[in-house]
């Protein structure tokens, strides 16, 4: 325990260094979907597990945005819930500012709760419909005893509302009197009210109109610059990710298939799955180009395919892909890729440059 408290107090010292604010090591979450014991005995069925997140390694530097992308059901939202502590991890570590949160007792989590907040996906469900907006935003203030006294609390709530582009008088209203975009602003005001360092944003704009999305995203970027926030941004919308991110991680069936600097991933995606995703982004320059549509569906995660979990949909799949699960291998430009076809079957880096382009042509050729 003493080690925990020392590292917590030394946060100011480490913040100056290049150490990432958040780093996930081998983070895993397994859900037990087994029927009750009695049913298992009668129906003679075994236990069944869902590996929602499987050995995730991610570093998020201070003041930067790391985006997780992937199709529905790939475990993105589970990662968000693991990081903020809504789910307990089944394995691995979540290091936040030098402290492993997974080993922390609930009572010791207090200060980290204040420093890690979350913006939710559904602006209609994330605000309690029976509460006034000022009470919603003041809840973290009260829970963490940030303000003393009602007057100070009201001032702070007014300031936060104005910070996210609403007016201080809006605090008297109820959530249903606001539009989706305004509600998401309220949600953001609540998230930053406890003065967090780290915000987990679980698809914060996917429930909004396109015109409103950009306003909310701009607000989030402004706040990041102003407050020095670090974001874990979760989305399935690559255009949004491109706009927001410094780093990108692509997830497939609970595993990271490719991760690295956003620019690099968007310019030269290597993993066949990342390429398929990139091809779905509408772009004026791509208008007349043949596209490889993402075909097939995500396999049932309870019974994932053997080997690389992408192999049933992969245009480059070979025998080794069906037998052996690829590990993440460091590549040129700071990215990591988990693909036998890209990195070479033996797991070595293969031929840099040549191998980097070849699979793309192959993928196109197949289509």
């Amino acid at each position, binding site marked *: 325990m003493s080690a925990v408290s020392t590292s917590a107090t030394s946060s100011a010292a480490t913040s100056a260094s290049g150490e990432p604010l958040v780093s996930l090591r081998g983070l895993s979450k397994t859900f037990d979907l087994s029927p009750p014991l009695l049913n298992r005995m009668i129906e003679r069925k075994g236990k069944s597990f869902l590996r929602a997140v499987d050995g995730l390694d991610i570093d998020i530097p201070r003041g930067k945005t790391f985006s997780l992308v992937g199709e529905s059901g790939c475990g993105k939202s589970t990662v968000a*819930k693991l990081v*903020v*502590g*809504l789910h307990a991890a089944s394995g691995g570590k979540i290091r936040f500012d030098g402290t492993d949160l997974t080993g922390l007792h609930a009572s010791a*989590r*207090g200060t980290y*709760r*204040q420093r*890690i*907040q*979350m913006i*939710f*996906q*559904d602006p209609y*469900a*994330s*605000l*309690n*419909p*029976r*509460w006034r907006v000022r009470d919603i935003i003041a*809840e*973290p203030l009260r*829970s*963490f005893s940030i303000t003393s006294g009602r007057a100070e609390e*009201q001032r702070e709530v007014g300031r936060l509302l104005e910070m996210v582009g609403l007016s201080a008088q809006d605090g*008297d209203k109820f959530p249903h009197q606001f539009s989706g975009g305004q509600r998401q602003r309220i949600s953001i005001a*609540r998230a930053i009210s*406890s003065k967090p360092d780290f915000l987990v944003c679980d698809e914060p704009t996917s429930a909004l109109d396109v015109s409103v999305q950009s306003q909310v995203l701009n607000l989030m970027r402004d706040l990041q610059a102003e407050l020095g926030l670090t974001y874990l941004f979760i989305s399935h919308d690559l255009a949004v990710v491109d706009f927001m991110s410094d780093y990108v991680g692509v997830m497939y069936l609970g595993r990271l298939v490719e991760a690295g600097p956003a620019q690099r991933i968007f310019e030269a995606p290597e993993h066949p799955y990342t390429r398929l995703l990139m091809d779905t982004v509408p772009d004026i320059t791509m208008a007349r180009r043949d596209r490889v549509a993402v075909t097939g569906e995500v396999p049932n995660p309870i019974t994932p395919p053997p080997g690389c979990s992408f192999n049933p949909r992969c245009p480059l799949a070979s025998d080794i892909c069906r037998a052996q699960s690829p590990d993440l291998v460091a590549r040129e430009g700071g990215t990591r890729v988990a693909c036998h076809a890209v990195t070479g079957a033996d797991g070595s880096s293969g031929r840099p440059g040549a191998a980097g382009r070849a699979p793309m042509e192959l993928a196109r050729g197949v289509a």
Partner: protein
Amino acid sequence: MALEVFPQSRIAAILKSDIFYRFRTSYVTVAAAIVTLCIVMAALLAPWIAPHDPFDVSTLSLWDSELPPVWVEGGDPRFLLGTDNQGRDVLSAILYGSRISLAVGFVSVALAMVIGIVVGLVSGYFGGMVDAFFMRIADVMLSFPTILVALLVSGIARGALPREMHDSAALIVLVFAITVTTWVQYARTVRSSTMVERGREYVFAAQLVGRRPLAILFRHILPNVMGPVLVIATINLAMAILIEATLSFLGVGMPPTNPSLGTLIRVGNEYLFSGIWWVVIFPSLTLVALVLAVNLLGDWLRDALNPKLR
């Protein structure tokens, strides 16, 4: 600040609300509300508005017994709805009787609601063993007919308590019997709504800032599950009054010395065929009017709070 103008704006908000509009435009509901209000007010004010005190034996006179209502030949203007075989004023007995019926109804509904809400919230939120424990108890309760359980409870109470306490404890026994049989409905309803609310993001947000489960249950979830509870409570109020009347009619409820509407009907029933119809008809009409009016209010509330019917 804005807090001072709050009460007025709240009244204005109620007058402008959809629910009030639905109330205002439904004549049946308005009539039901007026009837309920009249009976409740009359019962509350019974000691001041009743023409006689039916419990004051010294004012009773056998000369006045079995007088018909005032509009029937031989009626006495002192006794508007006539008198019973001991010379008690039927109108006064009804006023005092509905007092007891309503008291039993309101208290048992309030108790059942509190127990049901707490059990439902805890079961729905925590799930697992806690949930299984409470819900199996609820299943057992549901497998008995309400009247049977009520009869059982009052039978046990009668056996356990000394004879002289029977009458004084009758009210408590009735309330207990009705509460025990009706809390399950609230618990089930609240549990299922809680299970839905528990997965909503506003609950996650509250968990994230470290709110304790009790604070989340009562400050966040409870206000969002109260709608259906209020509907059940209204309909159950009518049901509780009926159960009380049934038990009293069967002779295991309120004693004739402190009669509720049900007791009045039972006592009057014995004289029905001797031509003294007013002793049983008027308490029965009061009971019918009260239960019908409360039920209509409950129906309206259910429709008004149901978003699908808006």
